[in-house]
């Protein structure tokens, strides 16, 4: 390979590298003074004579454009540091982490002056409301309850649930563990989560599936049940690691997952 094509290839690579570097500084909001603008300009200048076609020249222009953006960022950086609003970002982040939600809300209220406004209906929104109203099914259809079959309570097995499609046919333990992780994630604030908020899902079938799995979560020691009888509330608390319950006296705690209760939960959630 002769020297000229090699130099052109090198020039393209260098220009792309400059573009990527500048772009990452722009996007990540890094200190723009980390970029040595003079170095970049000298590289662009050095390779400019070897560029020939339109694609190479547009790469050169793009690289220059990004360098110009870095210079603009440097100017803004200096301006911002000179303003009274500037505080060390690390100090602020530390403060935000250490303050409680109550303190944060209280501080915010002192600096917050919400807008006062009046909303009124416009011709456009009136038209779309009319259109919506006309296409709406009558109440008798929308509120029609699905006919439910009354069935006697009985015992089911995991195999039957797999057959009925309530449970997926995959390793049972891995499913339990996935649910355990989900519970840990959702219960980060108080270390516990409302039972219905955890098992509740968009469909009744999915809720049943989650309730079934949650019962194993407790049986296998991945989580414990906290019952507050006065408030009629049940909470699930994830354990850090599965706890063996060989010493404790096992007991059963039935939780009815009725269709009515599920509908109630959904309505409350939508409110």
């Amino acid at each position, binding site marked *: 390979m002769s020297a000229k094509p090699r130099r052109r290839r090198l020039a393209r690579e260098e220009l792309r590298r400059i573009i990527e570097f500048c772009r990452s500084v722009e*996007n*990540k*909001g890094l200190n723009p003074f980390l970029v040595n603008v003079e170095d970049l300009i000298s590289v662009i200048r050095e390779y400019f004579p070897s560029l020939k076609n339109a694609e190479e020249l547009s790469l050169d222009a793009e690289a220059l454009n990004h360098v110009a953006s870095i210079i603009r960022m440097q100017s*803004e*950086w200096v301006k*911002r540091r000179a*303003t*009274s*609003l500037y*505080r*060390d*970002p690390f*100090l*602020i*982040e530390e*403060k*935000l*982490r*250490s*303050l409680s*939600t*109550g*303190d*944060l*809300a*209280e*501080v*915010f*209220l*002192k*600096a*917050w*002056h*919400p*807008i*006062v*406004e*009046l*909303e*009124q209906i*416009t011709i456009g929104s009136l038209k779309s409301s009319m259109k919506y109203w006309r296409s709406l099914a009558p109440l008798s259809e929308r509120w029609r309850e699905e006919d439910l079959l009354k069935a006697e309570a009985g015992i089911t097995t995991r195999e039957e649930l797999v057959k009925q499609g309530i449970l997926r046919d995959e390793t049972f333990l891995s499913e339990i563990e996935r649910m355990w992780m989900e519970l840990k*994630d*959702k*219960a*980060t*604030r108080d270390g516990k989560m409302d039972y219905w908020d955890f098992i509740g899902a968009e469909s009744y079938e999915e809720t049943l599936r989650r309730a079934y799995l949650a019962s194993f979560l407790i049986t296998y020691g991945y989580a414990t049940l906290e019952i507050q009888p006065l408030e009629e509330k049940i909470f699930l608390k994830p354990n850090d690691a599965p706890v063996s319950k060989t010493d404790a006296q096992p007991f059963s705690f039935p939780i009815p997952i009725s269709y009515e209760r599920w509908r109630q939960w959904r309505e409350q959630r939508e409110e």
Partner: protein
Amino acid sequence: MARATRRIGRKRRYSIMLKKAAQMILYRRHREPGVKGWELRRRLGSDYPKVLQLLDEYLGNLGLTVKTVFEEDGSPPENPTIDQLDKARFYVTLREELSLGDMKLVGWRIDDLAGLAVSLAYIISKGGKSPRKELESLLRTKLPGWRVEMNLNRYIRMGYLIEDENEQLYLGWRTRAEVDQKKLIDLLMEQEA
């Protein structure tokens, strides 16, 4: 006698303009509330800044104020030109500070408000721009994981934040209108943990 009649006429004219200005600012006619300076000039004439000053004095009795948000970022000009005022947007906001007890009146939960405080202060500290992922991870220390995304989307929907196609978050129009950014940062730094 003629002078007195002229004075009453002027008073009446300003009283009508005051009502018009209040309606224009308070009633929401566009996607954003408030009104632009040039819209006020078209309806009220070139002395609309005087009308706004009178409106501000009147609203002061009700604990409200006329807030001017200039087009340019940064501190507002001390003596704005007519051109700057024409391009500015005017809102009516609460004049006084709110207390924790008032929070229910404006329909916010404590942790939603704390999340908003964290989001705004963090973006301000980063010079007005922050990657969404970074802010999400900070918010997770304050809010349950499943609420972080929901809250951020709510702040964006309400206009407190703006998100671009590179998942970068910026301060939105509502923040500029409602939040005293300098005061927020100063108070945060003063607050004892």
